[in-house]
């Protein structure tokens, strides 16, 4: 759906001045909410995302409890004013799918068996959107889970790569996403070097896919350091 005549890359730079493998600026704040058990505010360029964690807490209804482990729930939700055209409140098909893949992105690191019969709730609110909200949400949720003291094997880090003007580049913004050829969000456990989420939209060759995957995994490593730093700062404050 490329607009006529729009050029996304000029002189080897993207419209916002970034190089191909450059992330947008990231800002992470831990423990920003009082009522939640854990929380994290995450900015990725113009994306503003907040995650809260509640639990482990008693699960209702009882027949949905798992006798062997905690049940992880994840709700991705966009504020009505987070996008250019007001979003009607409530879940739509897109948010249902994102909630599912985000939950699955985090599950591999959570020691759910420590808390049988309970639920752990992750709520992610998108306050401002500029492409990349699901990855920002996973990053925020991962930190919020740690902040809530949920026992985890590791953090999960997430980012998207895409293809614009024929080039594989990191972390598309909204203009790039709307006028680009492909978008591929991933999540990974950095210290294990394994992928916990992967989606692809658009069209890419196998070679572009492989290049993109490497680019994304490298960026996840950078994000992981920022997540760790934010958590360390939080705890050294306390």
């Amino acid at each position, binding site marked *: 759906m490329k607009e006529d005549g729009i050029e996304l890359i000029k002189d080897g730079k993207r419209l916002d001045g970034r190089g191909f493998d450059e992330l947008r600026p990231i800002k992470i704040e831990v423990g920003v909410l009082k*009522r939640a058990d854990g929380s994290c505010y995450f900015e990725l360029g113009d994306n*503003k995302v*907040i995650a809260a964690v509640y639990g482990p807490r008693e699960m209702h209804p009882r027949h949905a409890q798992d006798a062997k482990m905690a049940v992880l729930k994840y709700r991705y939700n966009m504020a*009505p*004013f987070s996008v250019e055209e*007001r979003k009607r409140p409530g879940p739509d098909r897109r948010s249902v799918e994102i909630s599912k893949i985000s939950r699955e992105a985090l599950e591999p690191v959570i020691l759910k068996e420590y808390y049988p019969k309970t639920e752990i709730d992750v709520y992610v609110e998108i306050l*401002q959107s500029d492409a990349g909200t699901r990855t920002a949400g996973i990053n925020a949720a991962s930190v919020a889970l740690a902040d809530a003291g949920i026992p985890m094997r590791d953090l999960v880090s997430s980012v998207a790569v895409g293809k614009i003007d024929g080039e594989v580049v990191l972390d598309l913004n909204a203009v790039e996403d709307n006028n680009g050829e492909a978008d591929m969000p991933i999540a990974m456990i950095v210290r294990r070097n394994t992928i916990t989420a992967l989606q692809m939209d658009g069209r890419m060759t196998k070679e572009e896919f492989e290049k993109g995957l490497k680019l994304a995994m490298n960026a996840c490593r950078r994000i992981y350091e920022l997540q760790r730093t934010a958590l360390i700062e939080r705890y050294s404050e306390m």
Partner: protein
Amino acid sequence: MGLEIMEDVRMDYVYNLVRGGKREDGRGFLDYREIKLETGVIKRAEGSARVKIGNTEVLVGVKLEPGEPFPDTPDKGVIITNAELVPLASPEFEPGPPNEDSVQLARVVDRGIRGSEAIDLSKLCIEEGEKVWIIFIDIHVLDNDGNLVDAATLGAVASLLETRIPNERYGLTGEDTLDIRDRPVAVTMVEIGGEILVDPSYNEENAAASGLTVISNEDGSISGMQKYWSGSIEEDKIAEMVEIGIEKAGEIRREFLE
């Protein structure tokens, strides 16, 4: 069950504090917690504000879209106020369609703005009977430590004051600010043990049998009221609350909306 006992304990604690002339956080009965207001926080919105009252935090965004007028007011814009008590903000909030609490929150905020006639809706007509501006005021609660109404009303009015009409996005021309003619401010009070407390915290709301919001305007008139919860209030207490409400509203208006 354990949780319910904890709640009883907290209610007794708050009640006993008040009987002893004190509040949880040490402030006076008629004092607000620290209020912080920041506008222009959401780029995608035509107007937005983040309000903190103590630990309570509310984000308000205003969006404008062309749409159909109501049949009985073909030349007037439309205000739609909506509140989402997203489960991020409190362990008591649950996902799902608006419940009676979020409906009430939205309707009280809406009533204050509408009653004050703060927005000149007749300036929001694009084509009579066909197209007018719809103003969506969306209240997104981030952290509920009590007194959402005052935070949301302040955020809504502050957002409206900075709202730009997105004429260009819809290929239209015209004025690009809303004509805001008044600045209604909500002040919520509760009664605990015979005492009136302004700006109740979450624990104070739970300990209170009743509460009252008074929304008042620049000229000291009232443009909305709502009594809360299952207690009853005496006539003279209500008169006192109205008095306090109008006075406190003036203070907030001077500090944050001028």
